[in-house]
Structure formats: C-alpha cells, structure tokens
C-alpha cells in the first residue's frame, strides 16, 4: 500500500532544493528579514523554475510536485507565500493567493508580494478580498507579516481549498522539521560534555527518539492525506486531522530540538531559531491547536472518521440506536 512518489515530482523537489541551497539557505532568509525587498529574488527564481505553475488539481504528478516543492521550501526557510499561491492555482478563479483565516486577520504573511489575494474564513465559510495596507515588517514571530484588511466579499473558493492549503502547509512544516531533526541529531554528536558526546546520554537519546517519532507521524499522516486529496476522497475530518498532527509534531520536535541544543539553540545565528520563529505563523493561522482539535471533533461527529473500525457520524449512530 505504498504509493510511490512520481519520479518527476522527486526530481522537481531536488531541483528546487539545489536552486535555493546554493545562495546560502537560511542565511538568505536572515538577510530577507533585514531587507524584505530581497524576497522578490525568491519569487523570480521560483517563476523561472515554473514552480508557480504547478497545479495541485491537475494530476498526481503535479500534486506531488507541489507538495514536495513546499517541503523543499520548508527545509530551506524560503521566504515566499508559496502555499497560498499554489492553493489559488489549485482551486482556479481569478486570484493569485488564497489565505485561510479565522475572522479578520491583522497581518498576513508575505501578503505584500502575493498579488490579488482572497481570505477564506474556515470557520464561517465566507470569502473576502484580502488587501495589504502596508509592506511586510519584521516581528520576531511574524517576520514577514504585512498589515491587512478585509475588502469586498469575494466568491467562495471550493472547500477543496482548505484541504490543499493544509496539505501544502503540512509539507512545508514537515520540511522545516526535517531540517530541525537533522540539526539536533548532528549536534548531539558534535557537542561534548563530561568528556563525551552528549548523544551518549540516555536523556538526549530519549529526546531524539521522541522527535523522530513525531516527525515520522507527521510524514505518515501528510502522505496519507495527500493521497486522499489526489483521489478526491479527503474529508474535512482528514484535513483537520493532518493539521492537528502538524501542530503536535511541530510542538514536540521544536521543543525537543531546543533541549538538545541548549543555550546555543536560542542564538539568532543558529538555524534552529530561524526555523522556530518562522514556523509560528503557519502554526497559528488560521487557528491553533485547541481550535483545530475542536474543528476535528465537530467534523468527526458530522462525517465520521475512517479507521479499521470506522467512527460513524453521530446522526447515523443515533438512527441505528433508535431503530
């Protein structure tokens, strides 16, 4: 029941990684925080590689390529509204970017570069134009947020937008967490305390084990949900399940990685800090862990959930009990 990645999609991911690794990886992201205008270099390069033309809804190869491009972007901390733009491309319509929101946001990531954007309110099911009212400005946990306001009501994107956006965001976060895990496990061999690498301490091995399990859990749920999205069978419950796993995994991996690094992992010169700070927007928008769990519970009651012994929708259970 493995679903092999299309070779073309893997090659595409590799070319994205190669293109952005050379100019300096996270160093470039740091430079963009100082000079946000440099983000346009990312957009130009992505355009040259035709990343912006990937259509998740076209076929399996393009869907996989879009997911893997987001993973590559996450691995390298690429400062660009890639998830929002690829979501817009997938659902069609006359917009350049789709942002999932919960109410009216005060800021939106890279909105100043996103072109014509629409805010899709996942709680209320409504859509409005999303208008940048100024350039992106740095805040530590929102490094590229641009101030914004809601405009006129807009045609609502199909519900599929929520799934596509969530899957792509999950792959972006997965990529970032993969880098965090590699950094943490590598550091555990370099750092010596009490005359030996800290890897040799059981407490550190526990940390590494826990972050590995959480990373694998996200990789599995992301792959599963991507497959269902490609087949067109992903439910909203599947989507919120992926988001919840993403939030759980990010929390566990980043916390454990920081503990492995100790004080040096708090320094701005260290890549873990960039990963940690830059992911926070993805983890809070459209909403955080508690709201995601509530949304999932509501969808499970409404739609059920596919397990070996499936959870039936509450209404189906009530009808069966009444009968």
């Amino acid at each position, binding site marked *: 029941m493995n679903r092999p990645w299309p070779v073309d999609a893997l090659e595409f991911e590799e070319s994205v990684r190669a293109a952005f690794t050379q100019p300096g990886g996270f160093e470039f992201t740091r430079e963009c925080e100082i000079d946000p205008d440099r983000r346009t270099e990312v957009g130009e390069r992505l355009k040259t590689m035709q990343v912006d033309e990937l259509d998740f809804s076209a076929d399996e190869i393009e869907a996989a390529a879009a997911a893997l491009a987001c993973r590559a972007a996450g691995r390298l901390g690429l400062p660009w509204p890639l998830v929002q733009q690829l979501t817009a491309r997938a659902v069609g319509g006359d917009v350049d970017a789709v942002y999932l929101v919960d109410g009216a946001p005060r800021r939106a990531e890279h909105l100043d570069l996103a072109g014509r954007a629409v805010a899709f309110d996942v709680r209320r099911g409504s859509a409005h134009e999303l208008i940048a009212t100024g350039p992106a400005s740095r805040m530590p946990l929102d490094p590229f947020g641009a101030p914004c306001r809601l405009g006129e009501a807009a045609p609502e994107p199909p519900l599929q937008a929520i799934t596509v956006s969530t899957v792509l965001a999950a792959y972006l976060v997965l990529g970032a967490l993969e880098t965090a895990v590699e950094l943490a496990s590598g550091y555990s*061999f370099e750092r010596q305390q009490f005359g030996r690498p800290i890897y040799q301490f059981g407490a550190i091995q526990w940390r590494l084990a826990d972050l590995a399990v959480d990373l694998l859990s996200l990789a599995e749920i992301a792959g599963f949900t991507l497959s269902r999205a490609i087949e067109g069978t992903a439910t909203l419950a599947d989507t919120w399940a992926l988001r919840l796993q993403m939030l759980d995994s990010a929390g566990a991996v980043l916390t454990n990685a920081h503990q492995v690094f100790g004080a040096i992992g708090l320094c701005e010169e260290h890549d873990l800090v960039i990963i940690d700070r830059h992911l926070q927007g993805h983890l809070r928008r459209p909403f955080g862990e508690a709201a995601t769990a509530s949304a999932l519970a509501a969808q499970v009651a409404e739609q059920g959930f596919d397990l070996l012994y499936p959870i039936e929708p509450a209404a189906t259970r009530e009808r069966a009990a009444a009968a």
Partner: protein
Amino acid sequence: MTVQPMTFGDDDSVRELRARLRRMIEEDLPADFRGAFIEGDEGQRIANEFCRRLAEEDLLTMSWPREFGGADGSIWAQTALREEMWAHHEPRGAQYMGLNWVGPAIMEFGTEEQRQKHLPAIGGAKSTWCQGFSEPEAGSDLASLRLRARREASGEWRLSGQKIWTSYAALAEWCFLTARSDPAGSKHEGITVFLLPMNRPGVTVRAIDSMLGPHHLNEVFFDDVVATDAEVLGEVDKGWDVIRFVLAHERIGIARYARTERLLAMLAAHLPDEDTGESIEMRTRHARLLVKARAARLMNYRSVAAVAAGTAANGVSAARLRTTLLDQEVAALALEVLGEEGLYDDDAAPAHGYVEGAWRYARSATIASGTSEIQRLLVARELTKGR
C-alpha cells in the same frame, strides 16, 4: 528522509478475507468473549474451538509457506488476520505465538526432523508453546541471560536456572528456551536455543498473580533438566541469531493498534454530547487520539511494507513506541468517558467489561516485548545511524 505516502485500502482479496474473518468472529465467538486467559477453562475451550474453525477454513497457517502446510498468504492478508484477531481479544489464545514466530523460527533454523515433529502440531493448533526468554537478571538486557546449559560427557545437556514473566507456561507443552551454553564469550555469544518439552523432569512452573489475569505471568524453574542435541534449534552457541529473528517477528506480530482502534470506535458511542467543558474536553481528547491511531497504523504498515520488500525494517521501534503509548492513552480516556461503569467487568457493564480489561492490559503495553525505554534507544540509534 523521503518516505513514500502510505495509504490504507485493502485490495479485493484482503477485503474479502477481512469480511470473512469478521463473520466468523461474529458467528463463532460469544459476544462476551474477552480472551482465552480468564479464570476457569472456558476461555481455553473457546480458543481451541476457534482455532479448529480457522484450521478448517485454511486460515490458521495462512501466513506460512505452502511447503510447510501454509497458504503463502500475502503480507497484507497476514496483517489483516493479525488485526482482526487482536482486535477481538486474540481468539487463537496462546497459539498466536506458535503461528507467528515459533513455527517460522523452526522453518528458518530447524533440522528436517524438528520441522517434521513440530510444524504440523503448531499448524494444527495441537501444541502450545511458551517463550523462555526473560530471567530475573535479564529483562531488557536479554543477552545477559544466565540459565546454564552444560554438556555432559555423555553428550547430553543439563539445564539449570530460572525464567520469569513466562506467559502461558502452565498451559504449554513446549518451551522455546534460551540458555547460556558458553559463559566465556561475549554476552551475545555462547547462547543456545532449545525446544524443550515442559513435562521433562525438573521443570517447575509457578504462576504469578498479576493484574493482567491468569496465565500471563509465570516463573519457570529448571533443575538439572536433561536435553539432547536433537532439541537444539540452530547452532550451539549461536542462539542470538535465532533470538534476533524471533524478536523481529514478535515486534510486528501483534497488531496492538487494531484493538485500540476498535476501542476508539466503541467509545464514540459513549461520548457525551453536551456543551459542558468536560464533555467538550472528552470529545476533543477522543479526536486527538483518532489522529494518533491513524499515525500508529500507518507507521506499522510502513514496517510491514519494509518486511514485504525485504528491506531493513526501519521504523519498527518508532511504530511500536507510538502504538504502545497510544494504547495507554486510549485506555485512560475510556475509563474517563465511562466513569464508574468503566471499572466493572460484569455483563451489565458497557461492552461486557471490555474497557476495564483493556485498561488493565494496557498497563503492560510499554513493558512487554521490549520496554518503551528500549524502543526509544533503538529509535535514537536508527536516527543517528551512520554518524
């Protein structure tokens, strides 16, 4: 790490098998069946009868190769069988050990004589085995086992020492016994495996009362027990190779996540639907565990796929860790949701006391077959392999 997406989705033959198994379970198992290991003989009687039914349907040894009387079942068919059995309190009773790993170990390492002697009996559910691995001083550190095997001048072996935590020892006719045949070498060397009849003079079983119920835990004492070369499995002093084979089968041999998923499905019907804080808390906890259950099954399937592809079964320990921790979280939620009713095991309790049994058994999830501490060390080792 570029793992390929893993999906559920049985193919037609596995779907048909799963439906067939569920029909058999519904028709042939009492509604209140909660496993073979209960007070009295009724659990054993039901398990023996169910094994006979599986054998009639050529399902008992489905996973075995045809040359040993099996059906060459695909790895996914075997997985479905394990899932359905474990989700319904393993109605094969102690036989699952013989079928899952004793038989395969004898196929792999046994002599022709040993194969002829043991495989038909295991395949027909006519012999019960216990696993003589753990000792008082050799638990997680299994290779430190000290039960001594001395070869006499006559060529016979003499076995002296103790095993502990040995499940089903009082029921078993045979013991898959590990012993220290050469104390001079490193601890992974000098181990020999014996296929020993439990009625051999000098073997004494003492039951240990435990919260898991009868038969799960025993001590077994070996007092100058005679064994022969014909009872040695594999090479003398090379028993660690056999043990590694067994552990690899054992770790993917139990579909623990399947019982957890069934419990989650049962719990859905008992979740409170009010808008109070505690009701909302229970529903969201349940929802969170659904996601973990999905991840656990996918991770287990990853290990199965690796075995099927003949590649290193990376991720087995990670899957096991995720699964066993989940088992305990779900059992804890189940008691929380059912409240006082969750404590009872009589017919008036929800699902005939399924929850209290699941909760007691979940206590052992992170201990049996390799503790979660050891699994974590294995996961960390895998993550840093090659550095």
